[in-house]
């Protein structure tokens, strides 16, 4: 049953011609409204996850729920389809259950706020925003239990409910939601900040309606949607062939010993439509690494990747959705069945960007980027201050941006829009820890004509007893290089006890006990290299040796012989390069490293961790009953 929209003065919109100047003005006003939503949120939210790291995303949609400005596509379609109730002016919807909105948000940590925007008695737009809350309850601090086996272990699960009803705050709902969090003050403040951001969007939309008229604004939104569709239609025709291309990549493990999980996507064009088919993707996991991938969200990612190279200034929207067909097999890692756990979907969410880049780049290898920092590693640390006060840190990590046609990947940066690291002086001031090291992991970027960015090597010295959780990936399957570039280095973690004992840690772990004086080495992976490393300017390699980004030994991957100070031995370098050229295999478009079987064989020796076990499709009893 779809949602019923109530309007006090309902009447259809009249499509009126919008002159190009007004269109530009309205486009800019929408863009500015979104920027203002972000600004309001970041300035008033409390949790470092949102206000320092920017883990929140705004959107404005037309009355039909199509996104006109935003970046993850519309959050509204699934909600509008499934909401069994009435929506009227002054209502504000809150939800966090991915199964209630077709995965528009993909784990319970993300709270989605949806606000209908009315003007003169009719619905003119929607404002919406979701933000990642530090804690929504559940079995572990931070609410991201890797070892959860169903969504019921991942904290509270809110279907769409009215946080405000006709403009009146429903205190009881707020109390119930806030009460589930281990960090209730942050939850409450962040949620109110998200609502305030949506109100900014509402104010700006109403102002636009007053200035231009509802019909003009609505027509302009339609024109903007049409314009995108035309642009995408053109690009799809140019850049995508009718011959299918495919790519596969992996999530290393699920934290319960299974892995790697394959994500496979095949792409081809039929007429003006492009088909993206995930057939061949591995089954859903028993743990929480499943990613309930919303088809529309994936269309948006696809569109953004297409257009980024051609016209990065465009205000991107939903207008082209009917040109893309996304097929995801039921029960797979990307369309798990309820009540599969979803909290740790971040790895698969990141990985599909690598898959997408590789698919689109196959027709234009020059524009192909290597595998990159396609996840967002987390660290949770919680416990009690000496005065008995509870502390809980949720920190996002960063790593190496892949080698690109444009040049080297940045070291220790974010692939996610808007994310920034938390200053270490802030961490030390507000949490019982000292950050002894915060630098790039030397040699972790894949060698290439354009070097992959280095990962981060961060050493936490804990000053209080507590528990930590780790969320990371790419510890088993290396990030691949392209156009002859080498793979980047894999991630690793270890805990060094005060007595010097070193314990290797897995990349996905819950509830690891740490003691005062322990040091955690948290090392993320590097980006893959782009192009032939033997073509890289030796002087530049020397400079990077001097700067500590590449080691003397690492320089040999570029065929460069130099000393600690980066002084290059030209003769020896020529010799080495000639030798390497003569002895190596032909360069490949994709360089994946040793391959899964070989990686399994060497896993324990190289990482100190047992190799993961191949996941298999299993008929679950419930499926069999359903089939009968």
């Amino acid at each position, binding site marked *: 049953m779809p949602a019923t929209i109530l309007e006090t003065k309902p009447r259809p919109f009249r499509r009126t011609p919008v002159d190009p100047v007004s269109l530009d003005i309205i486009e*800019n006003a929408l863009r500015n409204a979104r920027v203002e939503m972000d600004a309001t949120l*970041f300035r*008033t939210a*409390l949790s*470092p996850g949102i206000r*320092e790291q920017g883990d929140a995303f705004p959107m404005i949609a037309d009355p039909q729920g199509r996104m006109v400005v935003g970046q993850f596509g519309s959050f509204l379609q699934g909600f509008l389809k499934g909401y069994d109730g009435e929506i009227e002016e002054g209502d504000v919807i809150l939800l966090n259950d991915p199964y209630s909105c077709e995965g528009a948000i993909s784990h319970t940590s993300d709270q989605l706020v949806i606000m209908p925007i009315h003007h003169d008695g009719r619905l003119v737009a929607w404002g919406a925003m979701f933000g990642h809350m530090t804690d929504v309850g559940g079995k572990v601090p931070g609410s991201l239990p890797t070892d959860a086996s169903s969504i019921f272990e991942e904290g509270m699960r809110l279907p769409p409910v009215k946080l405000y009803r006709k403009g009146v705050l429903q205190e009881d709902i707020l109390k119930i939601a806030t009460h589930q969090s281990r960090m209730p003050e942050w939850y409450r403040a962040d949620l109110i900040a998200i609502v305030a951001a949506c109100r900014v969007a509402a104010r700006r939309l109403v102002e636009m309606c007053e200035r231009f008229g509802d019909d003009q604004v609505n027509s302009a939104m339609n024109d903007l949607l049409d314009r995108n569709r035309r642009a995408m239609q053109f690009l799809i025709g140019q850049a995508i062939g009718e011959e299918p291309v495919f790519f596969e990549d992996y999530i290393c493990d699920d934290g319960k010993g299974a892995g790697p999980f394959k994500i496979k996507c095949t792409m081809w064009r039929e007429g003006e439509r492009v088909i993206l088919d995930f057939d061949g993707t591995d089954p859903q996991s028993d743990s929480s690494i499943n990613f309930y991938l919303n088809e529309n969200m994936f269309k948006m990612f696809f569109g953004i990747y297409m257009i980024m190279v051609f016209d990065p200034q465009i205000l991107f929207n939903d207008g082209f959705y009917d040109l893309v067909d996304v097929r995801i097999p039921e029960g797979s890692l990307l369309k798990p069945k309820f009540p599969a756990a979803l909290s740790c979907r971040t790895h698969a969410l990141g990985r599909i960007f690598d898959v997408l880049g590789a698919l689109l780049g196959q027709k234009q290898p020059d524009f192909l980027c290597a595998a990159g920092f396609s996840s967002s590693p987390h660290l949770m640390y919680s416990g009690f201050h000496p005065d008995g006060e509870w502390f809980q840190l949720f920190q996002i990590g960063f790593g190496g941006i892949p080698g690109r046609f444009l040049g080297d990947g940045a070291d220790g940066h974010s692939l996610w829009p808007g994310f920034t690291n938390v200053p270490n002086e802030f961490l030390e001031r507000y949490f019982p820890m000292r950050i002894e090291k915060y630098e790039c992991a030397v040699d972790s970027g894949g060698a290439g004509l354009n070097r992959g960015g280095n990962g981060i090597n961060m050493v936490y010295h804990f000053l209080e007893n507590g528990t930590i959780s780790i969320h990371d990936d790419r510890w088993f399957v290396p990030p691949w290089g392209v156009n002859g570039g080498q793979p980047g280095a894999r991630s690793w973690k270890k805990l060094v006890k005060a007595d010097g004992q070193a314990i290797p840690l897995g990349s996905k772990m819950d509830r690891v006990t740490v003691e005062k004086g322990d040091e955690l080495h948290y090392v993320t992976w590097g980006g893959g290299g782009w192009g032939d490393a033997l073509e890289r300017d030796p002087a530049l390699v020397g400079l990077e040796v001097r*700067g500590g980004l590449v080691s003397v030994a690492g320089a040999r991957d570029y065929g460069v012989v130099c000393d600690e100070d980066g002084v290059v031995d030209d003769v020896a370098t020529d010799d080495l390069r000639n030798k390497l050229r003569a002895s190596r295999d032909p360069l490949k478009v994709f360089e994946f490293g040793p391959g899964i079987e070989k990686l399994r064989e060497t896993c324990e020796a190289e990482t100190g961790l047992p190799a993961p076990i191949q996941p298999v499709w299993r008929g679950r009893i419930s499926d069999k009953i359903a089939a009968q």
Partner: protein
Amino acid sequence: MSYRLGVDVGGTFTDLLLFNEANGQTWRGKTPSTPEDPSIAVVSGTKQICEDAGIGAGDISVFLHGTTVATNAVLEGKGAVVGLIVTEGYRQVMQVARSFVPGGLAAWIIWPKPTPMALLENTVEVFGRMDAQGQEVRPLDEANIRTELLKLKSRGVQALTVCLMNSYLNGSHEKRVGEIAIELFGQDMPISLSHEILPEMYEYERTLTTVANSAMRPVVGKYVRNLKAELTRMGMNGQLSLLRSDGGLMSAQAAELKPVNLLMSGPAGGVTGAIFVAKNAGFKNILTLDVGGTSTDVALIEHGEPRLQRTTEVAHLSVRASSLDVRTVGAGGGSIAHVPELTKALRVGPQSAGAMPGPACYGRGGTEATVSDANLVLGYLPEELLGGRMKLDKAAAIAAVQKVADAMGVDLMEAARGIIDIVNENMFGALRMISVQQGYDPREFALMGFGGAGSLHSNAVAKLMGSWPVIVPISPGVLCAAGDATTRSRAETARSFSKRKSQTTDSDVHATLSEMADQAKATLIADGISEADISLKFEIDVRYYGQGFEVPMAVELDDFVTGGVEKLASAFDEEHRRLFTFNMETEHELVNLRCVALGKALELPVAPIEQGTGDASAARLTDHKMWVEGGWQDGAIYDRAKLRAGDVLSGPAIITEMDSTALVLPGCVAKVDALGNILINPA
């Protein structure tokens, strides 16, 4: 007799304004700028204006100067080679920065990787560590410091920055490293210690700010010393002061040590000049619109005070130094209009035709339509500029705009009008950012346009904003020079405090502020200002505990005799509600304390201009057709130099002067005030 001289170095002209401090008499001067060495124009202009006034350089007691030397050093990458000394484990603090990649999803694909201002190969680590309470965890190792510094010496660095973890709480390690550096490099090596430049939390921002300071020190030092030597040779022994980014003045000596405070000196001159003009014209609340060739700067002035911000942004550099809250948009007279094939949208800027080739109408080979070309096509610009010294090529402008018209499928005038509407809209957007979005009602503000093209757009933007009257001030360069000449000396001290309300007391705050006041006063006293002339202002950055964004709140020292902390908390609640529409129950945190010491405000009277009859026809140069409201209308061109106080004229009209043009729209009336400013209001 004593005189004050204000000098503003612009891209094209260097403007000078000389005040007789005794009677307010003024002299104006203008000379072409000399970008290769700006001091040449400054010196020749000074000679000329002294001759005009019949005084010797020795009669100038205060020489006040807004300069873009520091800004240009950054923009052109001509800063010094900086050696950076950091804490062990933090060598890549500049390389990793805040891990931020600008732009939306997938923008990393096309984002050029920046090169840090202090190169990684010129960055070294030293042992020793402070904790987050300012206590030493591990001591320095002097042998290690010497080894690392010698490495930097062998690499030929030209300036040094020391930035160690948590030094904002305890700078003793940085001090010791600085002392050893002096031993090894000598007294002449410029050394900047982060706890002195910016004693605030956040290691990357503190490092970047201090590195930027180091990079500018040799450049600014050389400029200041040369200028001072030249002026001394002319016989000027008065004080040389420079305009800071925050609109205050600092002595030349202070500028040499902390040039990071000069980064926005140029735009600050315009804003302080606008304040001076507005005050004399009787307006306290104004929005400024400074339109240049490639960009537009806007600022908000409430009750005669400009808003300050805690960061200064130049190009991609964002440093933590106070500056006037001036926002910039990439829309100016030279902004290029284009129609991307993929989307068929009309876009104006951010690309600019720059000085070369410039707009098509400049006749220097430009063929792309710019905002100036559209203004000319519409009849908003006269065909002659700079008092007849520059003739505009109207045919070239038409040809360029026609290309845009063809791409859009509309006629010439509609395209020209579209370009102007869009650029006005961009300016409107920038003004909204500093007014509506900060909780101010633009209808309570007057709008002042300046810069070469500010008054061409101010009338139209005022209509969008509802901000009246439009003030067309005395000529733009002189405005900045007036700002330089009339602003006050300023010294600031800032300190991280980071205490929750329950963790501090009135007397704690009082003691800290008093100590900071003594420091700030000492700086001005060292610059030769007598203690009696110094006034103090205090500010505390407040937030709800856990927020990442502070609101600066003005406070009085005496409040903290009793009840000050409570009063501050409730004032913050009120401000937070105004900005964001809600309050929180969370405890308040006092994040940073600041004290500003100000020299005496100069009360310079401005001489009124000759009284007219109210009839502007004597200034009317010629009839002129202008495209307004969808068709050609009869208007006129007026010569500003011939307008008298009280003269009134109606739009559509343009008013020209040496280096700017003002547009009066139909339905609006322009009136000249007693001091020569033109005020435009709806008829």
